[in-house]
Structures are given as structure tokens and as C-alpha cells.
């Protein structure tokens, strides 16, 4: 049995407190009136040589337009702490969901190498409950107009927008929350039942629990592929409600899948280094690193597939998505490609390096940071536009949810033996070598 080390527990609580303080500072320092927002932008512009105001007055724009621009900036600045909260909440939730998908794939494919890691995966997917609740609460607060992250939720905006009116049959607050509840319910239901069967299998004297787990995993994967795709339209694509992309669901999936696998590898290496997983050997880590390598490239394939198709055809209604990102988010947008593609490609290509544990941890940290930036790049340009910065609220959000994630995951790991006893493939997994 694993015991939650005090240092880790205190560390995670400190992370949560620091993160909550950071988020609080973000909410307190957000402007509450248009005037405040103007002052904040003016103060910022002084530092940068006053580009914004000068450009506006040069073109002699109308006063009415200036006023609407000010209000726009005001909403962006107000959105910033909310977006910081949402990006971090979704990022850690998506790790747990990616692990759940990986776990279901391992179950459904009856993989012989991974049963040794099932308890680690189950520990990580336990975060689905608090993480899912956090994301759901943020979505409910958005529907209650506490923020302006989702423009289509604002009745005034929809009243003046023909495109959004036409999408209202799908993008309306009630249906949106019902969908979110169904998806979260389905994912959590599978996770809880699979965990139950997994623990029951250890005590059973036949394989009926294993077979049940196989069946529900196959069914879950069907549900997951549909729900994940729709979830990505709802929770991420709809912050840009004028824009649409067909492979977006896959793209978000690749991001969560690779982050999830990376976290499995990191948690396994941590537990192994503490002596809790004596039968997990370098070949298991090697396999996880191969998945990290392969899915990183898969992510890049989808990223480029989406980018290049839109760049090539250059249809105005689609291309604005990338125009805003390349203009305002140049470094994060292209930086994440280096972090999520070039770095793992060169680091994890060598077969020997995949067996060096600290190497996998190092690559994992870069991959996770890269995929945080990926979510950041998906949400922020729509909600805060060019007012983005990775400052106190953003880092606070990361720290808070990282603390919660570590606390919840390792707390769950203490609740069952870390190595399953009676899985039909457990001996193969124990002997696994590559």
C-alpha cells in the first residue's frame, strides 16, 4: 500500500493556497468599470510607446467606435482571470480524461504490458470528479453571465448577430449545460465502474470482473469518441463561435491523450523511485515514452493539418482564427510547436534515452508545459485577445489546479494496492521486457 508522503501532501496544499491567492489577485485587479480598463491600457501603452491610442487617433475614428472599442478591451481585461482559471481547470481535467481514454484502450485491446500500471491510471482518473466539477461550475457561472468568455451566451450579442442566431439551436445555455452534464456523467460513471470491477477482480476467484471491464471499456470508447468531439466544440471551439473546424475534436483529443500518457509516465517514475512499484521496469517506461513520442507527432500532424488547410485556402471566415493567433500570440503559438514536436522528436527518438527515467521526466515537463500553452492558445485569443500575459492569475491557476490534482491523485493512490494481484495479464506484465 502506498502512503501519501507528508512532504508531498503539504507541498500540494501550499500549491493550492498560493494558486488561490494568485487567482484572487487576478480577480481583484481586474477592472470593474470601462474607465478603469482605459487607465490600465493607457498605463500599459506608456510602457510600450503608446501604440494603441496613436494608431486610433491617426485614422480619425469616430467617437462611437472608440467607445465600443473601450468596452471591448474592458471585457477582455475582465475575462482575463476567468480565462486563466478556465484554461488551468480544463488543462488538468483533460489530463485525467486523456488517462481515462488510454486506460480504456489498454483494457479494450487487452494489452499485456500495461496491467502493472492500471492502479496508477485509476489514481489519476480519480481527478475526473473534482476536476469535472470545477469545469462544470465555471461553465455554469459563464451561463449566469459572471464573465464574457462565451459570446453566444450573451442575449444582446446574439440579438445583433445573424450567424449566432442560426447556431442558437445548438449553442443555447440550457442545451449546453445538459450536454456537459451528460458527458461528465458518462465519463465519471465509466471510471467508477471500471475501478470497482478492477478492485473486485483482485479478490475474485474467476475472471468475470475482468470481462465486464473489457465490455464496458469497449462501450466507453465509442461514447468517449463522440462525447469528446462534441465537448471540444462546446467547451473550447464555442469561445470563437464564428469559427469552425472539422478536425478540432481530434486535435483536442491528441492534446489530452499525450498529456495523459506523459502524466502516467511521470507518476509511475515517481512511485517507482520511492520503491512502491518494484515490478515496473524500464521497459514499461520505455513503452510509455514511445507513446509520448508517437502521440506528440500525432498531435503535430493534426495541428499542422488544421493550420495548413486553413492557411492554404485562406478563406476569410476561417482564417481569422490563425490571423489573430499569429499576430498577437506569435511566441506561444509557434513556441508550443517547438515544445510539443521538435523537443520530444529529438529527445525521445533514441531507444536508449526512452529508458533513462530522468530523461523521460524532463521531456514530460516540456510536453506538459507545451500542452498547457496549447489550451492557452485555444482559449485566450478569443477571450482576452491582445490583452494576454502569463502573469499572476495564469500561474495562480496552474498552481491551484496542480495542487488539487496532486492532492487528489495521490490520495486515491493510497486507497488500493499499487499493483493489481489477479489480472489474467498480470504475469505477462510483470515479465514484460522490450
Amino acid at each position, binding site marked *: 500500500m502506498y502512503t501519501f508522503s507528508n512532504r508531498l501532501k503539504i507541498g500540494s496544499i501550499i500549491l493550492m493556497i498560493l494558486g488561490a491567492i494568485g487567482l484572487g489577485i487576478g480577480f481583484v485587479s481586474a477592472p470593474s468599470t470601462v474607465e478603469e480598463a482605459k487607465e490600465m491600457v493607457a498605463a500599459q501603452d506608456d510602457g510600450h510607446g503608446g501604440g494603441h491610442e496613436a494608431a486610433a487617433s491617426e485614422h480619425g475614428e469616430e467617437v462611437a467606435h472608440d467607445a465600443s472599442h473601450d468596452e471591448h478591451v474592458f471585457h477582455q481585461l475582465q475575462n482575463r482571470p476567468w480565462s486563466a482559471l478556465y484554461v488551468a481547470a480544463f488543462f488538468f481535467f483533460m489530463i485525467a480524461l486523456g488517462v481515462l481514454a488510454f486506460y480504456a484502450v489498454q483494457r479494450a485491446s487487452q494489452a499485456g504490458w500495461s496491467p502493472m500500471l492500471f492502479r496508477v491510471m485509476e489514481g489519476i482518473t480519480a481527478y475526473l470528479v473534482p476536476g469535472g466539477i470545477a469545469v462544470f461550475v465555471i461553465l455554469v457561472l459563464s451561463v449566469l453571465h459572471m464573465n464574457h468568455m462565451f459570446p453566444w451566451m450573451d442575449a444582446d450579442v446574439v440579438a445583433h448577430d445573424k450567424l449566432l442566431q442560426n447556431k442558437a439551436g445548438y449553442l443555447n445555455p440550457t442545451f449546453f449545460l445538459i450536454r456537459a452534464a451528460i458527458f461528465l456523467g458518462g465519463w465519471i460513471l465509466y471510471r467508477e465502474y471500471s475501478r470497482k470491477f478492477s478492485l473486485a477482480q483482485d479478490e475474485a476467484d474467476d475472471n468475470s470482473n475482468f470481462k465486464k471491464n473489457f465490455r464496458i471499456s469497449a462501450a466507453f470508447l465509442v461514447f468517449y469518441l463522440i462525447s469528446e468531439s462534441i465537448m471540444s466544440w462546446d467547451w473550447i471551439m464555442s469561445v470563437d463561435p464564428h469559427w469552425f473546424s472539422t478536425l478540432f475534436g481530434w486535435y483536442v483529443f491528441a492534446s489530452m491523450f499525450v498529456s495523459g500518457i506523459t502524466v502516467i509516465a511521470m507518476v509511475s517514475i515517481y512511485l517507482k523511485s520511492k520503491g512502491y512499484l518494484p515490478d515496473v521496469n524500464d521497459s514499461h517506461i520505455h513503452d510509455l515514452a514511445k507513446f509520448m513520442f508517437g502521440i506528440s507527432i500525432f498531435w503535430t500532424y493534426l495541428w*499542422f493539418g488544421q*493550420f*495548413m488547410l486553413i*492557411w*492554404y485556402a*485562406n478563406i476569410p471566415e476561417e482564417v481569422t482564427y490563425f490571423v489573430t493567433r499569429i499576430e498577437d500570440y506569435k511566441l506561444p503559438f509557434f513556441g508550443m510547436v517547438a515544445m510539443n514536436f521538435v523537443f520530444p522528436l529529438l529527445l525521445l*527518438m533514441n*531507444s536508449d534515452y526512452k529508458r533513462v527515467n530522468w530523461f523521460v521526466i524532463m521531456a514530460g515537463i516540456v510536453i506538459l508545459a507545451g500542452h498547457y500553452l496549447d489550451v492557452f492558445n485555444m482559449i485566450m485569443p478569443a477571450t482576452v485577445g491582445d490583452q494576454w500575459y502569463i502573469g499572476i492569475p495564469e500561474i495562480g491557476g496552474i498552481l491551484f489546479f496542480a495542487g488539487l490534482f496532486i492532492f487528489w491523485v495521490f490520495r486515491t493512490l493510497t486507497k488500493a494496492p499499487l499493483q493489481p494481484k489477479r489480472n489474467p495479464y498480470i504475469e505477462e506484465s510483470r515479465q514484460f521486457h522490450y
Partner: protein
Amino acid sequence: MASKVIHAYYDDDDVLMHAVKKVKAANHHIEEVYCPFPVHGLDKAMGLAPTRIAITSFMYGCLGLIVAIVMMNYIMITDWPQDIGGKPSFSYMENMPAFVPIMFEMTVFFAAHLMVITFYLRSRLWPFKKAENPDVRTTDDHFVMEIGIHDNEAALKELLSDTGAVEINSLEK
């Protein structure tokens, strides 16, 4: 290489593996092992050096990438920077996404084909090459271990018959 060799025949890969370990432990040099199929771990048991073909493949891939970049840069940007459907041909980076499919395919093409050719060269394989198997049974269901004789034929034969060989022949090479 010895001018006289012993061919020890085996009909099971497990027995062969044990025999290889035993012969290595007795400090005899194994010239060659002929198998009808790959025997997992045989290279390790024989103490063969790991292959470096993956490294050559990586270098060939880099070469392919460079060829693609230089080619497309010369053709599309330097030689005749024509406006084709509004694509920006002012610099390579500006039009790069359009070249990526070519860059990718060339990398894979070079990496794969040159590696295969390297493999053929290093293992001396070509059409009309005279087959080297000492006994046709080695392509079907027998394994042959070849060991050079250095005035120790009797001792070697005894050792090999202990390892479960089904047939032991010594012959001039």
C-alpha cells in the same frame, strides 16, 4: 577463419540458445548460426554488437530534409518566384507550410530507401547472389551452428553432443 569447421545441427531454438550459451561459456568462437527464422535473443547470446542501421537512417532522413528544402527554395523562391494563386513566394519561410508535405515525404523516402540499400550492402544481398546456406534444411526446420576447428576437434564434438545437437559434421571449408 579456420579452414576446417564443425557444423552442429539442432532442431529446436530453445536447445540452440542453450547450446550457444554453453559454447560461448567454453570460450569457443562461433563463426555463424544459420536459422530458418529469427530467434529472439540469439544476437545477445552470441555477443553480437548492436546494429547501427537506425543511426544511418536518421542521417539519411536529415539528408532528405535538406534536399527537399534546397530544391523547393531554389525552384519556388530563387529561380522563378512566380505568383501562383496568391501564395507568398518572397521567402522560404513565408510559403513554408505549402512545402511541408514535400519535406516530410522526402525525409521518409530518403530515410527508408537509403537504409534498405545500406542493409543490402552491409549484408551482401543482391539478385543472382549465390545462396550461402550450408544445408537446405536450415531454411526449413533445422538450425546449424558453425564453429572453427583449431586442433580441438574431439573436444569440440564432445561438447557439442552434450548440448543436444542432433547431428555433428566436420568439413573442409
